[in-house]
């Protein structure tokens, strides 16, 4: 097996003293789709936030590409720019859909025309072509979810972390999006997918990790 993309070693995360995650050893291979399953409160979102470098573990080590992660500063930002999380309840900025989808590109210094082009392509991918000028926070639930997905896809990240991406999507969009995800590994993108839509997840994933009470289930 090649060098894993993420390696967790003895990672523990507590909230108010309560253990939410405790993973002795877990690796994620590059270029694969891994599904993470488990009941509510198992620690799936917590795991994704740690992998997204948004939450620091209280204990243990997280290696990315075999390397320790910087604690802060420009290097951490550089790592974060390879990874993108679509959160379980994604937040859309109070701005146009276009601006939301182009936000990450703007941060990366991409020129305006290129940004517009990429944003439009990402919106088309999720079936929201033409939604650019609409105010993001006034969309329907499924439309918002799709904007969040487009916003992540537009970045063409090395790692895509998806937390319940199918929630609120209509059946047709879910199917479309399933095809999009399935195609990502071929483009070199590693996907880690949390979903209660078990069938969909199992269809997509090369590997399934099950969490229970913050720990890996046997």
């Amino acid at each position, binding site marked *: 097996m090649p060098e894993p993309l993420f390696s967790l070693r003895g990672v523990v995360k507590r909230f108010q003293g309560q253990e939410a995650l405790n993973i002795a050893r877990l690796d994620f291979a590059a270029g694969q789709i891994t599904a993470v399953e488990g009941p509510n409160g198992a620690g799936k979102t917590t795991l994704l936030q740690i992998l997204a470098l948004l939450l620091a573990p209280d204990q243990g080590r997280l290696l990315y590409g075999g390397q320790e992660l910087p604690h802060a500063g*420009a290097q951490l*930002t550089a790592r*974060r720019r390879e990874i993108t999380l679509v*959160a379980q*309840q*994604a*937040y859309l900025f109070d701005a*146009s859909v276009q601006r939301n989808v182009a936000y*990450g590109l703007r*941060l990366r210094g991409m020129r305006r025309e290129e940004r517009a082009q990429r944003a439009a392509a990402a919106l088309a991918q999720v079936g929201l072509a033409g939604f650019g000028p609409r105010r993001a926070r006034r969309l329907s639930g499924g439309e918002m979810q799709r904007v969040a997905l487009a916003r992540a896809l537009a970045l063409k990240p090395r790692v895509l972390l998806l937390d319940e991406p199918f929630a609120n999507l209509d059946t047709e969009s879910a199917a479309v999006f399933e095809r999009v995800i399935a195609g990502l590994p071929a483009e070199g993108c590693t996907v880690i997918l949390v979903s209660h839509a078990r069938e969909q997840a199992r269809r997509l994933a090369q590997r399934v990790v099950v969490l229970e009470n913050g720990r890996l289930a046997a």
Partner: protein
Amino acid sequence: MDFFVGGVARGLRLLASLDPEVYGIAWLSLRVSLSAVILAALAAVPLGLLIGQNEFPGKRLLVVVFNTLLALPTVVVGLVIYGLLSHRGPLGGLELLYTPAAMILAQAVLAFPLITALVLAAVTTLDSRVAHTALTLGATRAQAAWAVLAEARFAVLAALAAGFGRVITEVGAAIMVGGNIRHYTRTFTTAIALETSKGDFAQGMALGIFLLVLALAVNLATHHLQMRWR
């Protein structure tokens, strides 16, 4: 009440008159108070964000302290700055006493806790997911902070407007460290204080109306800024 109606009319006539003395006062008031707010905001906005976005022991106490500093009397600020800048004070060598620079300093000190407390409140009331969203889309810490401000822009601008209102209307600090010197450190409020002490209430009202028109212009400008923020 005659001075009231008369004062309003006179205020509007004053606006139209282009009287260089009054316009000099207006320009000084604007310059001093805007500079003070900008100076204060440069420290207060980041500080308010920092306190609001992080959890740490003593945070609540700090919030209470800032809310208390809202009750910092202008005269006391004036006295302290006066004490610092007085010839006998530690910074006397700078020769800043009775200059516009001294007024800017005093007013910035006044605006600082107000802007901090209000930005803090704005950020605390905001949806907590904003910073994480910006970060995962590739923002640096500073860019994420900016995203938070942008989402709370309405309240952040209200905080700045409150800071501006606080300093452009205050008279205690301005008169203490500025000295209300004609053609040099006389602002709207010190001029109003002078006119009312002379018994010319109508002129006091007139200057007040002028000041409000000026504030309206500033707020309209800020409003346009807000509309274009995103």
